[in-house]
């Protein structure tokens, strides 16, 4: 799995990606940013004022030179300098204000984006997680939202102020000398040309670099994961060779990409210098032959230095902006996905049963559970699950289950046996509606599961999954995940039931032992015991055990068998197991092959049938 270390892998994200539907994404993004309307208005005002200060401050230089410094008017000089100081202080103030507000707005926006994205992910159906890698989804948080925040933090306001300054400076230039502006225009045109040519080239090289770095990183990942095998097979030299080829290819393309990207700055800067030189000459001639005053020339030259800055800055930021919009697009793509369908209106409630069999709803666990219909009538939950001619496929066209019919009577233990891909896990996935079936019906105590509210449905089913996942937190926290308000006694009782109590007590901090990294410090078997305890504390009426004991060796399994039996007592239980010993005492065993139930019956029936189960049991068949 490519998660975990997927974070921050690869080169710094380069902005060479184009959003597909810019208008829509920007509109979406504006809805988020727009929540701070009034603050943004302040930002806009500050931006205009700040640009005005920048342009105006330089313009004051003309009067300073012509009227105060050259004639030596110190009173005017003092006044003008004071005014200038005022303008610049105001400018700094405005700049600080809009920056500070933008920090707030950007953090608020990314906070809202993260919250909505996470909340959305909680509602998405499992099929979504099947088709997206963890690394891909993580990068919505680590890359995409980060890029958006970054551009809002610095780039956006600066870009706008850059444009404003640019417009102001151009206006001033035109005012000072339209003739000199022709020279400037020429150079600005040249800059645009350079931006476009270099930009095109470096985009091309960057695409190649991305490909090569993907190849290097992929190779590193696969080989380092298999490093022990490399050692055992003396394959080191070969591995080095394969690495060398990819490393060199990446070096070449990265050198080209970085060379062009790095050329942008000096090229732009020096065109601006050429502009400066030409303006200087032209200005000198104008001054000699057409009487351009010295102050205007000096100020114009200051403006020449200023005018290219926004162009360079914007040409650099444009890629970041595009990357941010592309990132936002990916985030909104997820936000716009439909969540799990849930039109059920039947809910799960605790009930108390009177002597006559009448049911009354109650707060805490009474005598059991009941389904509460929308009209308020209560039906006792018994755990009767039936599949009628269920057809299902994960991907359209690739049918996994072909018309499965089965029934589990209350309190029965039903087992599924079959090869990987036969559809065992799929069946349990359908009972709790992780996926939607294409045709047929699944009923629960006679109620179509689609009519049951999803949360209620899942609360009624306890699941111990094939892969155990634990959360960062204490062992007690992890067991309590099954019932958030469980008391310490309940937690310990559940652990004892699962036979996990003994190993937990052996840990230095017992139930308060802090687990990180998916419980990495525990053995696979111990983690599975915790998962069983977690299901036990939830105390659900129906239990699904999907390979729950696969990582526990046969001796340990014998030890927890009692606990499991206690856990299963009085409940409807669906068991999926590789190890036939676990399913032997099931009431009904279903042998699945290629999405169909090919044999059913109890152990003795099936052995007597002498079919597939018999072959599996006697070791003539391979379960894969």
């Amino acid at each position, binding site marked *: 799995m490519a998660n975990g270390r997927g974070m921050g892998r690869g080169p710094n994200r380069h902005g060479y990606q184009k959003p597909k539907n810019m208008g829509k994404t920007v509109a979406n993004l504006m809805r988020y940013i727009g929540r701070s309307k009034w603050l943004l208005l302040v930002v806009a005002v500050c931006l205009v004022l700040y640009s005005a200060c920048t342009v105006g401050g330089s313009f004051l230089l003309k009067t300073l030179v012509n009227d105060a410094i050259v004639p030596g008017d110190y009173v005017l000089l003092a006044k003008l300098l004071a005014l200038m100081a005022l303008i610049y202080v105001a400018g700094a103030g405005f700049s600080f204000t809009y920056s500070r507000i933008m920090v707030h707005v950007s953090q608020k926006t990314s906070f809202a984006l993260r919250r909505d994205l996470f909340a959305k992910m909680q509602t998405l159906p499992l099929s979504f997680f099947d088709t997206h890698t963890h690394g891909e989804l993580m990068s919505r948080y680590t890359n995409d939202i980060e890029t958006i925040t970054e551009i809002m933090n610095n780039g956006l306001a600066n870009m706008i102020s850059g444009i404003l300054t640019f417009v102001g400076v151009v206006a001033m230039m035109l005012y000072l000398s339209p003739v000199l502006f022709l020279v400037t225009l020429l150079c600005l045109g040249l800059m645009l040309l350079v931006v476009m040519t270099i930009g095109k080239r470096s985009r091309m090289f960057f695409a190649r670099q991305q490909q090569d770095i993907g190849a290097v990183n992929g190779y590193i990942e696969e080989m380092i994961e298999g490093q022990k095998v490399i050692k055992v097979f003396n394959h080191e030299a070969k591995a080095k060779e394969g690495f060398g080829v990819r*490393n060199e290819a990446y070096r070449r393309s990265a050198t080209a990409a970085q*060379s062009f990207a790095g050329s942008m700055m000096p090229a732009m800067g020096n065109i601006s210098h050429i502009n400066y030189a030409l303006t*200087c000459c032209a*200005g000198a001639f104008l001054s*000699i032959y057409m009487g351009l005053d010295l102050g205007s020339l000096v100020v114009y030259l200051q403006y020449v230095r200023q005018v290219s800055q926004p162009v360079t800055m914007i040409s650099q930021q444009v890629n970041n902006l595009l990357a941010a919009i592309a990132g936002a697009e990916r985030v909104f793509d997820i936000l716009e996905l439909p969540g799990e369908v849930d039109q059920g209106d039947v809910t799960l409630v605790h009930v108390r049963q009177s002597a006559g069999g009448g049911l009354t709803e109650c707060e805490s666990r009474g005598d059991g559970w009941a389904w509460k219909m929308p009209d308020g009538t209560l039906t006792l939950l018994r755990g009767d699950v039936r599949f009628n001619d269920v057809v299902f496929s994960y991907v359209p066209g690739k049918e996994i289950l072909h018309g499965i019919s089965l029934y589990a009577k209350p309190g029965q233990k039903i087992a599924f046996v079959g090869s990987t891909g036969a559809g065992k896990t799929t069946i349990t996935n359908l009972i709790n509606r992780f996926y939607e079936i294409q045709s047929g019906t699944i009923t629960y105590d006679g109620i179509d599961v689609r009519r049951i509210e999803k949360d209620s449905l899942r609360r009624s089913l306890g699941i111990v*999954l094939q892969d155990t996942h634990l959360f960062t937190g204490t062992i007690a926290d992890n067991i309590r995940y099954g019932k958030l308000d469980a008391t310490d006694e309940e937690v310990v009782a559940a652990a004892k039931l699962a036979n996990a109590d003994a190993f937990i007590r052996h840990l230095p901090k017992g139930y308060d032992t802090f687990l990180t990294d998916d419980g990495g410090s525990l053995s696979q078997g111990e983690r599975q015991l915790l998962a069983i305890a977690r299901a036990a504390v939830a105390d659900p009426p129906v239990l699904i055990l999907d390979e729950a004991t696969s990582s526990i060796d046969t001796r340990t399994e014998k030890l927890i068998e009692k606990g499991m039996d206690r856990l299963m007592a009085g409940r409807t239980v669906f068991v999926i197991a590789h190890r036939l010993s676990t399913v032997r005492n099931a009431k009904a065993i279903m042998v699945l092959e290629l999405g169909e139930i090919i044999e059913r019956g109890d152990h003795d029936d099936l052995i007597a049938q002498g079919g597939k189960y018999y072959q599996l049991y006697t070791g003539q068949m*391979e379960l894969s």
Partner: protein
Amino acid sequence: MIRKLWPYTAGYRKWILLGALCSGAEAVFELILPLMMATIVDEYIPLGDTSGILRHGLLMVLLALVSMALGVCAAFFSARAGQCFGANLRDAQYSRIQDYAFRNIEKFSTASLITRLTTDCNTMQMTLMMSLRLLVRAPVMLVSALVLAIGISLQLSRVFLVALPLLAVSIFLILSTVAPKFRLLQERTDDLNLTVQENLNAVRVVKSFVREDFENQKFEGRNLALRGISETAFGRVIFAMPTMMLITYGTIIAVMWYGAPMVQSGALEVALLTTFFTYITQVLMSLMMVSMMLMMLTRSVACGKRIIEVLEEKPDITDEGADPSARVADGSIDFDHVWFKYNTASEAWNLEDVDLHIQSGQTVGIIGATGSAKSTLVQLIPRLYEATRGAVRVGGRPVGDYTMEHLRDSCAMVLQKNTLFSGTVRENLLWGNEAATDEEIWAACRAACADEFIHRLPGGLDMDLGQGGVNVSGGQKQRLCIARAILKKPKVLILDDSTSAVDTATDARIRAAFRTQLPHTTKIIIAQRIISVMDADLIVVMDDGRISDMGTHDELMARSEIYRDVYQSQQEGANIDG
């Protein structure tokens, strides 16, 4: 650190030097331009010297062109230097890792090694490249601008005595309050990412227990914390720009005030005065740039340290003391009172006083509960770990006598957690013996009972396995791994629980094939299932790091309680763990 990493620039130093030179020269050229402008305005305009203006103007354009060329060269050279450095670091690390023993790999963990090879190396190459471009340019700019300013007027340059320290102190104050906030910011980001990561991993658990709201609340807390620290951190960073602006413009105003009388007295020309402004901006800007770069460098230092750790790690096991001509004579194996622990600092032993003697060609089964050190024991044979006390001998000589390459070719091992690599079936099998002919490959596959299903695969030996061998089932994968090991024609073949996903019938056929096709090879089989080792010449029962008992099946049934226990637990449930 620079001293330690410098060797990895070998072969590319001229690019570093050229890059730095070009960057520096570009900065100087850029600064001369304003000075020439001043000459035009102050000297030629009053004289009306048009040819002088043209000459000077042309020279300025020329200088700008040279500066551009230098700048572009600097970009090319620094890109080359940076990427070469990165490539060298990756290569050096990768090669080093190839020398690592298992213990070294475990010390770093796979994930951490991958990060060091990818992200850290990329940061380092970026750092060198950016340093060449900016970290050279900025100080050169600072000094040259300062020198030129002093050249214009020593008297006015005294403003720098106030401005520079003022800016330096302000930047220092800002950065030093920001740095700890950013560290916190990183921690909060990690917290948040961890929550997302765990939710992705455990999405089924969350949904099954209907804990969506609970997770949302948990996330909300992390999200709020991240937002808070972000606002604080970035809210402080933005002080830098306005501070810089205020100091710059304050300095310019001061210079105008003090410069005006000098212009009056004819000691200073007007354009030189405005040129002075340009230099003020450059000096202060450069100072700011240098400090920002230095802050960024702290991150690179952390990456550099991590890379050095990998490079300096001493391989736990080396060929030192090995006799290159030593050859494994036969498949006999001796453990002479071997003691072993993974962690030398821990008190508990992982293997205690193991004394075991295996004759060449024997089949030995090893049985024991999870954690009883079965794998540990066999990993000492091909010297994947080294015994802490006692001696391990293969073919009558201590394992340290042979080169690792020869020893591991002679003692083939199929690891419990085995891996196939992307590529075809054939490419994977050839790992065992690169020169193997198709006949040899098929022979090995027959011995591992893999031939039948390979025939059935689309493309047969040439089918692409996909990364990690995703295109074959667990049992098929294990048989391919066994065939790969057999291709080595080893003296000793070790299977560490390598048939767990293979059904009992096929398992039995593999063992029968071993007997007929590899009669002289010593076979050591670790298994969960008694049936897999029942017919072995010798069965070793491991319990908590010790040999609890050994003997044949019948002997052990008669006297070993553990063995009987395991046997019975498996009998009841039929022996199909498949």
